[in-house]
């Protein structure tokens, strides 16, 4: 399906990542946002509040993030595409509703413009330190998808992709921005609406009497959806439920449900690999990066190559699910991986887990507040190549 032109601001713009992200959401068909302001994500909802009256839709500023993150889910069950926008402390407050969205399979996009933590931390300065929180921060076992843009253009492009994936898999999809990407102003090209592919919700074609809210097949683990008001009389609960959506709290139902919620992502992990690879073939060292850090890493890699080192760059566009197989394949040919990130060592754990000690994995941590110095990454590349 093509994008609704009403939400598409076709043309070339000079805007920051927050504004570009908002345009991405509008282009993807988002017409309902319930938000709560927090630096450095606020501009996204501010722009949405300003744009939506003329596009047609609703913005409401809620009383807190607990409210915002569940109000959007009400919007979904009314038929909308929605986005949830926050940073730092707001993300922490939203964790219960992240689980609710996973459990109830409520398609939704969650934007986290990362800032330094823990707690109030560095409200106006960058970090990439929420990568594990989104994966593990809500209780119980669940799977999400997360994308990481490194420019305002990608904030726009990946926002649309995030919406499309959330509809395809009926799960929360994160757009993991950071303060630098959110506030950096660059050229953003927004294509014509008919050039933008948007994924429609997986509406059921079944009659109410034949429809079961959480019925799936072994071939397709994503159930078909309805919206309130259409006569399906659906029941939605965060309790463990059977395929009718009714609470059923026993061991087999729990096993079946949780396994399916995980498998609908895990079994599609190959399809969900999205990386940019540069010079990885024949490389001795591969730098694995994501988001803003990938731009600093590029500078370090260029210098290393100028010094004659064979260095590849693997940039994660989709961070979760983590591309385990790809890393394992690369581990057969490289000496080492170098993993710079604006946190004290989060995604590096995934690289280590994947390579199972077969090659060296060097972490280049950073407590946040600014980006790495390229030299810091360069030093580790040189060390790794030894």
């Amino acid at each position, binding site marked *: 399906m093509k994008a609704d032109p009403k939400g598409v601001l076709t043309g070339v713009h000079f805007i920051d990542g927050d504004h570009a992200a908002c345009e991405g959401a509008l282009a993807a068909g988002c017409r309902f946002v319930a938000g709560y302001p927090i630096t450095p994500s606020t501009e996204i909802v501010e722009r949405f509040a300003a744009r939506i009256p003329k596009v*047609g839709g609703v913005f409401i500023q*809620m*009383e807190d993030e607990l409210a915002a993150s*569940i109000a959007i*889910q009400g*919007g979904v069950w*009314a038929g*909308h595409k929605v986005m949830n926008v926050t940073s730092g402390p707001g993300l922490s407050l939203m964790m219960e509703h992240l689980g609710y969205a996973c459990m109830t399979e409520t398609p939704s996009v969650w934007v986290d413009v990362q800032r330094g933590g823990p707690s109030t931390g560095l409200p106006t300065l960058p970090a990439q330190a929420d990568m594990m929180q989104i994966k593990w921060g809500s209780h119980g076992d669940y799977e999400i998808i997360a994308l990481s843009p490194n420019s305002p253009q990608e904030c726009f492009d990946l926002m649309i992709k995030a919406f499309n994936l959330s509809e395809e898999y009926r799960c929360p999809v994160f757009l993991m921005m950071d303060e630098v990407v959110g506030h950096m102003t660059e050229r953003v090209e927004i294509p014509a609406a008919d050039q933008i592919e948007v994924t429609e919700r997986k509406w059921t074609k079944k009659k109410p009497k034949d429809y079961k809210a959480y019925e799936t097949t072994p071939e397709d683990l994503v159930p078909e959806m309805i919206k309130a*008001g259409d006569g399906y009389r659906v029941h939605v609960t965060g309790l463990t439920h059977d395929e009718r959506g009714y609470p059923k709290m026993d061991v087999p139902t729990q096993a079946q449900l949780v396994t399916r919620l995980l498998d609908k992502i895990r079994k599609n992990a190959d399809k969900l690999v999205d990386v940019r690879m540069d010079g990885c073939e024949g490389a001795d060292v591969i730098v694995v990066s994501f988001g803003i850090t990938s731009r600093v890493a590029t500078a370090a890699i260029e210098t290393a190559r100028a010094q004659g080192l064979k260095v590849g760059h693997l940039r994660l566009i989709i961070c979760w699910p983590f591309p385990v197989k790809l890393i394992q394949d690369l581990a057969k040919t490289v000496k080492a991986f170098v993993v710079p990130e604006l946190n004290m060592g989060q995604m590096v754990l995934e690289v280590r887990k994947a390579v199972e000690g077969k090659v060296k994995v060097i972490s280049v941590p950073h407590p946040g507040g600014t980006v790495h110095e390229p030299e810091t990454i360069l030093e580790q590349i040189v060390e790794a190549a030894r």
Partner: protein
Amino acid sequence: MSESLDLHLALAETELENPVLPYLRQDRIPHIWCPGCGIGTSVNCFCRALTDSGLDLDKVAIVSGIGCTGRTAGYLNLDSFHTTHGRAIPFATGLKLGNPDLNVVVYSGDGDLFAIGGNHFFHAARRNMDILVICVNNFTYGMTGGQVAPTTPVGPTQTTMPLGNFESPFNLPFIADACGATYVSRWTVYHVRQLAKAMKEALNKKGFRFIEVMSPCPTLYSRRNRLGDGVDQVKYYKENSVIKNGADTKDIGLGYQGEIVVGKFVDRERATWLESMNDHFSKVLGDQFKPYGGKPEGV
């Protein structure tokens, strides 16, 4: 079989055809509520109110939080959402704004709506969000085993107030009134007819509407405080309730086993959040703005 027995059985059969059955998800019965619990009685009243309201039930959605009362959503044959503890109101807000054609009802407990969810109640009322909130007040946290609630009067013991509660409780209609609700009433599960009528009236009104339903929790609150069983509590409601329609809400706080003022206290008109938004944007933006309402476009 004698003719009279035949007749008797036929009568019994018609009586079995309980008029509220079509409103329930019959494949989910038996329910979890204890014998003598008042929640079921309130749900019965609600079903009758649905019949009398004349509403298209495909357009009525029910949203609950977590608790014994929170299970209500799961038993009603409507679009029904069992959300998270305390957050039924913001979910309902999203549902209503997402599709203004829906008549959205929040049905939940006193702890859910006024402890963990208190902030959402205040703001939804302040905004005049167009939803009906029904609170079953049993003065306790039923689901978790009888802990103190923000409604517990001073005096009775709760598991987390083992020596008796010393905190002051909320006066729920007063809060709803002060925050701007368009409709506020309180009934007990003894007052089934009045309660059903109030629910019907509230279902057909616009704005943020609130009904407090006093209801016994015989298993925890009553037993722990030696107040007898469910029937004893309903007897207490009967003997100690006074109907005072239009009473000033600040005067109707509930004491421990004291007088219960019931009735309709507030019934007023105020523009809903969505009406205000549409009016405001129409004024400011003129032709550039198309009033929002109905289903999301393209759906």
